[in-house]
């Protein structure tokens, strides 16, 4: 039914060939979108871009949460917890520093800091 378990608890059963194929399509399209969007990013902002994508790729957080949170042997939970802490670090520091850098880009005419 719809209630297919989502992430880790799932066995191989629901990740059949069809699911994998659709993931490949998703990967392909997301890569094209990524290439298209990133080529248009202003060169001025390449450093903030990298810290932003850094934070975005910390999406591994969702997998880490599941592994940490589910009822597994403690060692597995520990691996998950380390991964979760590392991902959380990237999310927090990535977004904060990106915003900090972007605040510094002053439009012409407003260059004086108040």
């Amino acid at each position, binding site marked *: 039914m719809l209630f297919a*378990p989502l992430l880790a608890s799932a066995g191989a059963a629901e990740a059949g060939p069809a699911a994998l194929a659709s993931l490949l399509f*998703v990967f392909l399209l997301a890569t094209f979108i990524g290439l298209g969007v990133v080529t248009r990013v202003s060169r001025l902002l390449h*450093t903030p*871009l990298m810290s932003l994508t850094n934070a975005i790729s910390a999406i*591994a957080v969702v997998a880490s949460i599941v592994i940490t949170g589910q009822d597994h042997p403690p060692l597995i939970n520990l691996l998950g917890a380390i991964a979760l802490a590392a991902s959380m*670090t990237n999310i927090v520091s990535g977004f*904060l520093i990106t915003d900090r850098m972007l605040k510094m880009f002053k439009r012409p005419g407003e260059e004086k800091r108040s």
Partner: protein
Amino acid sequence: MTFWIIEIAYLVASALFVMSLYWMNDPKTARRGVGAGVAAMALAIVGTLFNPGIVNWGYIAGAVGAGVLIGVPLSWVPLTAVPQRTAVSHAFGGLAAGLVGAAKFYLWRGEPESFTAFRTFALVAEVILGFLTFTGSLMAAGKLQEVKWIPQRPVTYPFQNAVNVGLLGLAVACGLALVYRPLELAYLFPVIVVLALTFGILLIIPIGGADMPTVISLLNSYAGLSAVAMGFVLDNKLLVIAGALDGSSGLILSIIMCRAMNRSFTNVLFGAFGQVQAKTGAAETRTAKKETPEGAAQVLEMASQVVIVPGYGMAVAQAQQRVRELYDELTKRKIEVKFAIHPVAGRMPGHMNVLLAEADIPYDKLIEMDDINPEMAQTDVVLVIGANDVVNPAARHDKTSPIFGMPIIDADKARMCLAIKRSMNPGFAGIENELYFADHTYMLFGDAKAVVGDLVKQLQGGSGLH
């Protein structure tokens, strides 16, 4: 119900991640991009917490707390240290991917039907990419931070590339064996981890400081790809999408960096660029002409257009605020001041822009190389602050030079060039710079911050006399 809560949260998060990058195309909307990213991440996390199997709330809270405690101070680093911070977060990203992969591998041993060939393949890819990104990025961060026991100059040894490729090949071979016999050959898994960790270190050892922008971008791409592989392992579209966005962003930045140095990926990774060149042929003793701050200030005052070429030396000397004061003094005199930004100036893509923006230079004065070069012939004075290889005219004509073919800022085409430099030592690429010996080039020796400060003092003092 839970299924749809999670799926819809992930769907909206995917859209917001794309918008987040889209809004980065203009400094005016860029902060909205951060907002979208934060919202997307929050949705993804909250959605995941709805997962029915979650019981260890304490562990989760503890790990999240630890992440916040490390992450917040990590966002306060000075902007000159942003390349290191970025490398460290690539390392964390790689570590997370590797650990999640390891956890899944050992969980799957209890449910052998999970080891379908494709998923095991994805798992191996995730683990190799994750762990090599981890150690590789830590090494890169160490080099950038100039940690004592990590050599700055490239380290080479015989058969280096053969060893590296061999190690990676061995890891991949073990991985493929694991795809066929995941249970019987499970002991190969730790071997793969160790090989990937070692490969990451060896990959970065032969890479010099000048190549760091490319390497950081490449590691960015690897971190994204490891998230994609994780998405395949877990059958999770959000991971695949976010990872693909990160991976393609890193790829584009690497390509831009490589083009800006006229080099290929293979050359960056295996070239050991940046060893000090042995002086070849009859090293003619050329002398550079020296100028005093007084003289340089007078020259600047007479100009109508000044182009400043900043380089990593400016960041090292923390001279940005002084540069800003110089900018103020010159614009006060109705002199047009522009900054010429080479794509690989600094230690990561866009590094100079961030440093100058921090010093309150308006961003319309930060001009890309291709746009400023046509103006060089009409420029009265070029002031080179701590840049070296990116203004070396040898790149245009000297076929024997290691940087031959690299696009440069045409500082030598301006009517006069002033170059601030600590000493006549070659730059990071280890190459002598012809610009310093040109007829119309005058050197200002000293620490960039002190020299620019002197120039400012001269201009401030001089303005009262006229």
